C-alpha cells in the first residue's frame, strides 16, 4: 500500500493509475486528476518533512494546531436544562484526555474548554457531549467540491476539515459532490472552511445557496406561464388558419379547394392543436380517470375529443355517416383549446400575484450582518449569526435579526412588520425586530433570535400555514365539487339523447353540439378557486398590516362577531404604571413660623424627594416614580438609611431630611396629620390611580399618583368597534372603582371587574350563552384560556413574540386598532368570497342548462361551443381577478 501524494488516498502500487519518479522516490497516483496536479507542481506535494500525512495549517490562525500549545474554545450547548446537567457535562469533558479545564456555565449554556489540540479535537468533545445526552449548537453548511472523483479522497478531506479549529463534524459525499460541515460560527467562518477545503487541492464551488424560496416559486410560476403562453400562441395561429379554411366557400381564392381536401387540411391543422397544445387536458383527464375522479380536464378532453373524433370520421370515413350528417367541427375543437389556454394563461399570471404579500415578506430578509467577533467588526452572512452575537447597525441599514439594544439610540421604521407607520424610538434594553429599517442613529444590539425563530420567519410560517387551512364556507363548495363533474357528464349524455330523440332536424348535429357545449361551459375551477384565492390574498393583506391570522376559520368567524371582550391591563392600557400627578400639600406652601408666602417645596422638589427615596426600591410603582422624575429632567439625590415597610411604604433620609413615602397606614403609624390631602388622594383613587403620600420631616408634604394609563388610540379603537356593531366589554381583575374609571375614559359601557384570571374564560362563555359570537382580546399569557374559549381570540403581541399559541389572530403592533382592522379585513374577505362563490355558482347553474338548450324551445337560442369555451375561460379568470381586488384593502383608519 502506498499513499497518493496528491489526494492522500491509499492505493495498491500495481493498480495505481500512474506513477512518477522524483528525487529517487516513486510516487503513485489514483487518477488522471491527481497526476495532472502533481505534474503541474510536484514540489507542492513532495516535501522532505512531509511524512505522507500533509500538515494542514489552521485556516483561522495560519498556525498548525499540532504545533500550537493549549487552545481555548467556547461550545454552545443547546439543551442544557438544569444546573446539575451542567456539572455532568463538565465532568464528561474533564474526563477526556487532553482537556485541561472545562467549565460549563448553566446560565449562558456554554462550555468553556481549555484543551491540547494534539491530544483531543473538537469532534471528540462534541462526541463526548452527545454521549452525555446534550447537543452542541453548531451551524450546518454545505460546501460544493469541484471534480471530486475518487471516493477515497473523501477521508482525506474529512480529516483536514475536522482538524480545522471550530469544526465539529465533517462528512464528504461523493454523490452530491458536497462537504457537509457542522461548525461553530463563533470560532470559524464559512470563508475559513472553504480555505481549509481548498488546502487539500480541490476547488470549492460557490456555495449553492439554492434559489431563495420566493424566487423558486416565482420561477416555477413564470415557467408555467410561459409554457401556457407558447401553447396558446401556437393554438391561436393554427386556429386562425382553421377558421379561415372552415369558411373557404365564402372566400374567392379558396373556393376552388374541394371540400374533402379542405377537410383533410383542417384535420392536419387541428391535430397538433389538440394533441400538443391541448395535451395537458388529456394527460390530466387520464390521470384523474385512473383515480376514478374527474376534473375540469375531463370535461374539456371529452368535449373537444368528441368534436374531433366525429369530424375525423366525417373526413376519412364519410361512408359510415348519412350524407346529411357529414360535417366537421375542427374549428370548434381548435378554438376551444386556444381559448381555454388563454384563460389558463391569464389565470396563471393573476394567481402569481395572489401571494405577493408573502413574497414581499420573504424579500425583507437581510443577507448579511456586521457583527463584532474578537473585538473586530466583520460582515457575515446571516446564516452564520448566533444568539448572543453583538451586531452593529448604522443609519439607513436593515436590522438583520431580532435582538435587544445594548448601546446607542435610534429610531426604527417597523412598518414592514408591525404595520405601524410612525418610526419607533429605540434605547438601551429595547427590543429590535429583524428586517426593520434603522433610521437615524447607530446602535449595537445583542442577538436574541436567529434563523427560523426570528419574528419575520415566524410570520411567514404562520401566514403560509393559515393559507393552507380551510374556511368553513368552503365546505359547501367542496360538497358541490365532489358531484359536479360527474353530474355535468350526465347532463351532457342526456342532452345528447333528448336532442337526438325529440330535437328538430338535423337532430344529430344539435345533439352533438349541445353535448359538447355542456361539457365545455361547465367550470368547476371557478367554484374551487373561489374561497382559497380570497383567503390567500386576505391573510397576506393581514400580514402587511401587522395582523397574523392563524386560520381561514378565524378570518371567517371574525366577520360574524357580535361582542368583544377586552382585557384591561396591557390591552386597553399600556400595562405599565406611569407617574400621573404630583400634588403638594397646601400647608407646605408656607414655611411654618415665618410670614414668607413662598412655597417651601415646589412640585418638582417634592417629586425629586419621592424619586430619590424610590430609587432604592424595587417595587414596580417605585420604578414609575423614578422614571417619571427622570422624564421631567430631575437629578436624583442619594438616599440613606433606606427602610422598606412591607405593605406600608418606604422611609429614607435624603439630603438630611427624613422622607416617608407610602399609604395611609404608613402615615398613621408615624402619626402624620394628612389634612386636606386625604380628600385629594380619594379623588385620585376614584380616577383609577394609586395615590401615595409623602411626608417630609414629620409633616405631610403631598401626594404622588401613579396609574396604568390608557394607550393613545384605545378610545378611538373602541368607538370604531362600536360603530362596527359590536358590544364592547371590559374585563379585569382590578377593583370596580379603578375599572370604572378606565371604562369611562375609553367609552366602554359594560365592565366585568374583580374577575380572577381563571374566571375570565367562564365570563367569555357566559357571553356566548347569551347567543353572542364573542371575541376576546388579551396579551395571550395569563388570559390564554379565555382566548381559547372565545370564538376568535386576539392576542396583542409585543415585539418579536408573534407565535402566541392560544390566539387565532395575533396583532403584532400592540394597539387595539389592529382588532378593528382585522374585523374590517375579515368583512372584506368574506364579502369577496361570497361574490366569488355566488358568481361561479350562478354561472354554472345558468350556463349548463342554457348550453343544454333549455332556451331553444322558447327563444330558439342554442349556444355555440366556441362561446361556451370563451365563457368558461373567463369565469375562472374573473374569480381570481376579483380576489385580487382585495389587495386594494385599506383599513378605515388609514383612509
Amino acid at each position, binding site marked *: 500500500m502506498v499513499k497518493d501524494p496528491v489526494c492522500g488516498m491509499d492505493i495498491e502500487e500495481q493498480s495505481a493509475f500512474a506513477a512518477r519518479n522524483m528525487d529517487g522516490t516513486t510516487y503513485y497516483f489514483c487518477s488522471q486528476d491527481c497526476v495532472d496536479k502533481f505534474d503541474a507542481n510536484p514540489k507542492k506535494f513532495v516535501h522532505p518533512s512531509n511524512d505522507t500525512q500533509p500538515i494542514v495549517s489552521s485556516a483561522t490562525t495560519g498556525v498548525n494546531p499540532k504545533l500550537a500549545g493549549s487552545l481555548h474554545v467556547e461550545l454552545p450547548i443547546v439543551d442544557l436544562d438544569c444546573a446539575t446537567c451542567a456539572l455532568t457535562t463538565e465532568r464528561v469533558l474533564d474526563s477526556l484526555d487532553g482537556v485541561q479545564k472545562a467549565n460549563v456555565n448553566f446560565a449562558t449554556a456554554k462550555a468553556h474548554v481549555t484543551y491540547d489540540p494534539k491530544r483531543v479535537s473538537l469532534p471528540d468533545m462534541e462526541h463526548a457531549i452527545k454521549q452525555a445526552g446534550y447537543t452542541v449548537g453548531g451551524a450546518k453548511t454545505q460546501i460544493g467540491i469541484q471534480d471530486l472523483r475518487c471516493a477515497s479522497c473523501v477521508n482525506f478531506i474529512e480529516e483536514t476539515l475536522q482538524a480545522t479549529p471550530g469544526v465539529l463534524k465533517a462528512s464528504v459525499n461523493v454523490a452530491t459532490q458536497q462537504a457537509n460541515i457542522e461548525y461553530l460560527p463563533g470560532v470559524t467562518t464559512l470563508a475559513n472552511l472553504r480555505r481549509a477545503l481548498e488546502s487539500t487541492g480541490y476547488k470549492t464551488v460557490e456555495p449553492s445557496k439554492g434559489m431563495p424560496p420566493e424566487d423558486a416559486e416565482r420561477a*416555477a410560476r413564470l*415557467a408555467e406561464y410561459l409554457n401556457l403562453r407558447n401553447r396558446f400562441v401556437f393554438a391561436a395561429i393554427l386556429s386562425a388558419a382553421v377558421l379561415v379554411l372552415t369558411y373557404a366557400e365564402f372566400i374567392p381564392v379558396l373556393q376552388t379547394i374541394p371540400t374533402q381536401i379542405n377537410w383533410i387540411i383542417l384535420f392536419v391543422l387541428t391535430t397538433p392543436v389538440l394533441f400538443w397544445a391541448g395535451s395537458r387536458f388529456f394527460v390530466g383527464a387520464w390521470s384523474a380517470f385512473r383515480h376514478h375522479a374527474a376534473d375540469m380536464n375531463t370535461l374539456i378532453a371529452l368535449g373537444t375529443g368528441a368534436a374531433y373524433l366525429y369530424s375525423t370520421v366525417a373526413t376519412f370515413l364519410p361512408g359510415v355517416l348519412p350524407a346529411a350528417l357529414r360535417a366537421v367541427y375542427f374549428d370548434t375543437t381548435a378554438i376551444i383549446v386556444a381559448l381555454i389556454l388563454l384563460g389558463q394563461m391569464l389565470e*396563471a399570471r393573476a394567481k402569481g400575484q395572489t401571494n405577493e404579500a408573502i413574497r414581499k415578506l420573504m424579500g425583507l430578509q437581510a443577507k448579511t450582518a456586521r457583527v463584532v467577533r474578537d473585538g473586530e467588526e466583520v460582515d457575515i452572512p446571516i446564516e452564520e449569526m448566533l444568539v448572543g452575537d453583538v451586531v452593529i447597525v448604522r443609519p439607513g441599514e436593515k436590522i438583520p435579526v431580532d435582538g435587544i439594544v445594548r448601546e446607542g439610540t435610534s429610531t426604527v421604521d417597523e412598518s414592514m412588520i408591525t404595520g405601524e407607520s410612525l418610526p419607533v424610538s429605540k434605547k438601551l434594553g429595547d427590543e429590535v425586530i429583524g428586517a426593520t429599517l434603522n433610521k437615524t442613529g447607530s446602535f449595537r444590539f445583542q442577538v436574541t433570535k436567529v434563523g427560523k425563530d426570528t419574528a419575520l420567519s415566524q410570520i411567514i410560517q404562520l401566514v403560509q400555514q393559515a393559507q393552507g387551512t380551510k374556511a368553513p364556507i368552503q365546505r359547501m363548495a*367542496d360538497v358541490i365539487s365532489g358531484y359536479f363533474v360527474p353530474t355535468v357528464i350526465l347532463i351532457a349524455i342526456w342532452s345528447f339523447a333528448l336532442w337526438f330523440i325529440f330535437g328538430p332536424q338535423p337532430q344529430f348535429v344539435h345533439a352533438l353540439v349541445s353535448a359538447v357545449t355542456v361539457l365545455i361551459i361547465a367550470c368547476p375551477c371557478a367554484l*374551487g378557486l373561489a374561497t382559497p384565492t380570497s383567503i390567500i390574498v386576505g391573510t397576506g393583506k393581514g400580514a402587511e398590516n401587522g395582523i397574523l391570522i392563524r386560520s381561514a376559520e378565524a378570518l371567517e368567524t371574525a366577520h360574524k362577531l357580535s361582542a368583544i371582550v377586552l382585557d384591561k391591563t396591557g390591552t386597553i392600557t399600556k400595562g405599565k404604571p406611569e407617574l400621573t400627578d404630583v400634588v403638594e400639600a397646601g400647608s407646605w406652601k408656607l414655611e411654618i413660623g415665618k410670614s414668607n408666602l413662598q412655597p417651601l417645596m415646589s412640585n418638582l422638589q417634592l417629586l425629586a424627594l419621592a424619586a430619590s427615596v424610590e430609587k432604592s426600591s424595587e417595587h414596580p410603582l417605585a420604578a414609575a416614580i423614578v422614571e417619571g422624575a427622570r422624564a421631567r429632567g430631575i437629578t436624583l439625590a442619594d438616599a440613606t438609611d433606606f427602610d422598606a415597610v412591607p405593605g406600608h411604604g418606604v422611609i429614607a433620609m435624603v439630603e438630611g431630611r427624613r422622607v416617608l413615602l407610602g399609604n395611609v397606614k404608613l402615615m398613621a403609624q408615624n402619626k402624620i396629620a394628612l389634612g386636606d390631602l386625604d380628600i385629594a388622594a380619594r379623588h385620585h383613587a376614584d380616577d383609577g390611580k394609586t395615590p401615595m403620600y409623602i411626608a417630609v420631616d414629620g409633616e405631610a408634604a403631598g401626594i404622588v399618583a401613579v396609574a396604568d394609563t390608557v394607550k393613545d388610540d384605545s378610545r378611538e379603537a373602541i368607538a370604531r368597534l362600536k360603530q362596527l356593531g359590536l358590544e364592547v366589554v371590559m374585563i379585569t381583575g382590578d377593583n370596580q372603582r379603578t375599572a370604572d374609571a378606565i371604562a369611562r375614559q375609553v367609552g366602554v359601557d359594560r365592565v366585568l371587574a374583580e374577575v380572577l384570571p381563571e374566571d375570565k374564560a367562564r365570563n367569555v362563555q357566559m357571553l356566548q350563552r347569551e347567543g353572542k359570537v364573542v371575541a376576546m382580546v388579551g396579551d395571550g399569557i395569563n388570559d390564554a384560556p379565555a382566548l381559547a374559549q372565545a370564538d376568535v381570540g386576539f392576542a396583542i403581541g409585543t415585539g418579536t413574540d408573534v407565535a402566541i399559541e392560544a390566539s387565532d389572530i395575533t396583532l403584532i403592533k400592540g394597539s387595539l386598532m389592529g382588532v378593528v382592522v382585522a374585523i374590517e379585513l375579515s368583512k372584506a374577505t368574506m364579502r369577496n368570497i361570497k361574490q366569488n362563490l355566488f358568481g361561479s355558482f350562478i354561472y354554472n347553474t345558468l350556463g349548463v342548462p342554457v348550453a343544454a338548450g333549455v332556451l331553444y324551445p322558447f327563444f330558439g337560442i342554442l349556444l355555440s361551443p366556441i362561446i361556451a369555451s370563451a365563457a368558461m375561460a373567463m369565469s375562472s379568470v374573473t374569480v381570481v381577478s376579483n380576489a385580487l381586488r382585495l389587495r386594494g384593502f385599506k383599513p378605515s383608519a388609514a383612509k
Partner: protein
Amino acid sequence: MTVMQLGVLFGAIVLSVLVVWFFFFSEKTGARLVVSSGVQEANIVVKGGYTPDVLVVKAGQPVRLNFNRQETASCSEMVLFPDFNKSAKLPTSETVSLEFTPDKPGEYDFQCQMGMLHGKLIVE
C-alpha cells in the same frame, strides 16, 4: 320512435349507470403503509390525483407521507388534511413530507386546496 332513437336512449341509460358507478361506487384500491423504524411511511405521487389515494394506517403510530408533485397545474399545489389541521405546499418535482399521528380510528379525507383531488386515509 325509430330504432336509432331507441338505441340512443338505451345507450344514454347505460352510459349514465356506468358514469355513476365509475365515480361513486367502483372500488378504489388502498395501500397499506410500510412501517419503518416506528413510522408508517408512504410515497405519494401527485399527478391529476394522488397515487395511491387510499391509505390504510394504524392508529396511534406516527404517519409520514412523502408527497411528490409531478405536474405544474396549480390545482394540486397544496395538499390538505383538514381533520388533522395539516397542510403542505407541494412545489413541482420536490418531495414534501407531512407527519402526524392519527389517534382515532376512522376515515379521513385529504384533498387539494380546491377540493378537486381527493384521497382517503383509513385509520384502523
